[in-house]
């Protein structure tokens, strides 16, 4: 069981952005591939309690991407957008819109090698602070649902054991 990378989230109050950063024990090329290749994405991208049921990626500027996840409670949610710039192994810029949100965010993924590791920084920019806040809230909602799904699984396991 690994302790996992520490993630820092910065929400500048005077700005319409969110910045996420963390250090991952791998080289930039591998992280870039894992972030963009459907064969890899299906293996790690789905949040806990979800499976990835669709993953379309056209990795070139102007190309579209779409991920669809299915929760163990039967609920589906999708996210997708368009690639704006692709610098293999270093930087990726794309739009991202969660189903149900009115406008996309522009996401810049930056990969900086650091010894054997990679500093990963994701900057999400929104058209307005209201949209930024809606996104933060939705991210939280997904996180809350994951916790509920875990709880359901746990309860069901206990019921099976008791029976």
């Amino acid at each position, binding site marked *: 069981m690994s302790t996992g990378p520490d993630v820092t*989230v910065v929400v500048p109050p005077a700005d319409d952005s969110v910045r996420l950063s963390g250090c991952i024990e791998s080289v930039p090329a591998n992280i870039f591939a894992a972030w963009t290749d459907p*064969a890899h994405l299906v293996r790690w991208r789905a949040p806990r309690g979800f499976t990835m049921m669709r993953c379309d990626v056209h990795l070139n500027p102007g190309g579209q991407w779409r991920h669809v996840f299915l929760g163990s409670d039967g609920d589906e949610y999708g996210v997708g957008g368009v690639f704006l710039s692709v610098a293999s192994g270093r930087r990726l810029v794309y739009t991202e819109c969660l189903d149900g949100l009115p406008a996309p965010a522009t996401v810049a993924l930056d990969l900086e090698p650091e010894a054997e590791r990679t500093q990963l920084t994701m900057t999400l920019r929104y058209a307005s602070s209201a949209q930024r806040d809606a996104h933060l809230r939705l991210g939280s909602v997904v996180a809350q649902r994951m916790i509920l799904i875990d709880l359901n699984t746990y309860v069901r396991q206990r019921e099976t054991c008791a029976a």
Partner: protein
Amino acid sequence: METDSLSMTFAALADPTRRAILMRLMEGERPVKELAEPFDISPPAVTKHLKVLEKAGLVARGRQAQWRPCRLEAGPLKEISDWVERYRRFWEQSFDRLEDYLKELQSRGDGNDKTAPGRGKS
């Protein structure tokens, strides 16, 4: 467009003078006059900022007629940090899965090692 409390808190925090006022209030209660001192703006302008902060629930005013000291209210700030913390945990788990997956690939020594996993061949 809805103006919920989270958006109001962010909007109130978006102004540098208002953030500076909150910083001063972290040291304790202050009357408006004292709050205005370090800024190059008039007391009425400070009052305007205070109204925004009050509306967002970040500042409360005392009851005494003349003095009415301002104090910091931590509730809305706590709400923001709770939202952000949940969001952060969500991404931490995501990065964690990514790292575990990449380690798994490495230990399997896919292909001739060192190559980026997958892209194209395999």
